[in-house]
């Protein structure tokens, strides 16, 4: 498990994190390319923007988000997860993520190309 601290980037009125999420208890888990268990309805990082705050903080595509600022993310809807990550008065979010082993990650990225 990894602890990732993302400092959001201010872009006018918006706070950018620089990554995308997929998953949630209201979503179809069989479409998730990153989970080992295709019934896993957790929140996954589907994309990380190059050079963005998330990449700088060490977040990687395929990471499963377990907690956001102490809030459990393993049993939430997609929208609940989005809300916990995009609070307007929070400049920093601290994530707890699990990451598959290096060899699996390499295998995964090779399959993508």
């Amino acid at each position, binding site marked *: 498990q990894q602890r990732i601290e993302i400092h959001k980037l201010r872009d006018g009125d918006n706070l950018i994190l620089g990554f995308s999420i997929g998953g949630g208890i209201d979503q*179809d888990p069989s479409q998730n390319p990153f989970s080992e268990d295709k019934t896993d309805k957790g929140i996954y990082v589907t994309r990380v923007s190059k050079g963005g705050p998330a990449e700088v903080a060490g977040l990687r595509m395929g990471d499963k988000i377990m907690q956001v600022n102490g809030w459990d993310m393993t*049993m939430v809807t997609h929208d609940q997860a989005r809300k916990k990550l995009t609070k307007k008065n929070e400049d920093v979010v601290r994530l707890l993520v699990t990451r598959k082993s290096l060899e699996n990650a390499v295998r995964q990225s090779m399959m993508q190309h």
Partner: protein
Amino acid sequence: YRGEEEIQKECALFPSAAVGETQSSVSAAEDLQTYSEREWKGNTTKSLLIRKGYEAIASEFNLRKVRGDNYCALRAVLFQVLSQSKQLPAWLHDSDISKWPKEMHSDQDFITEWQFPFETSKSKVQHLEQCLELLTNKWQEAVQSKSLEERERMCQQVFRGHDEEYELLEALKFLMLRTAVQLHSDMEKGSDVPEFCWLLFARDSSKCPKTFLTNHLRHVGFSGGLEQVEMCLLGYSLQETIRVVRLYKCDTEEFITYYPNDHKNASPLCLLTEDDRHYNVLVPKKFPKFDAYGRPKWNPPSDGQSSITTRL
């Protein structure tokens, strides 16, 4: 509609009552360690003790905060029942409990003393019948859920702070009264009763079921919560064991207390309290993916659901 500033101020004033930006009566799960460090900064003896208590259980459980009114003990127990119960209990399965208010009313004149937290055009007996029927239906719906997600959705529907939630809480109070009546009658006959009964009826203010109702039970949710002996009655009425982690009792043998004390039940309902006044819910941190037979705990639905991604 309340502005975000107002909501934030209220959260600061009532930290134990804050349940986030939704109307939910039970908040989402959060990490105990993080919560403890945020709520109990400082180094007073009390802070250190409470944080020690949180730390002791942080690896086992997550926290779900319960709306902090005088119903919170009942609410926490009801939530655990609906979210964790594996099957309908025998007493619920074997009887039509919605008949019980009429039975009690024909026997003794208690129900006229009942107080409801909402308006009702029905008679008190009829409304209690409705409450008990609702409890039966919701409990059935809960145990018949096909997945953890479905169950969670069902619970979120119930715990919205609407009349339905309070009807279920009043149903629990009725069950407590009915059990108190039975136990008191057993005591008078000289039959064996659980230990807590003696304490329940030893209080000057509740020497018998009638005064228990008028001086204690009917005020629960309004001007008072549940005393510890009443927690025993609640557990016993539901044939459940309520296991409470009592943080201010950390370092004593009362740190974890069972209501009732004979804890026959192998799967107790787990609650947390800092002060025996406000109760929150504890959920096990690691929920098993497979049941005792090695079968996966929930079935993949694949019924045309969405699979969206959101850029943040």
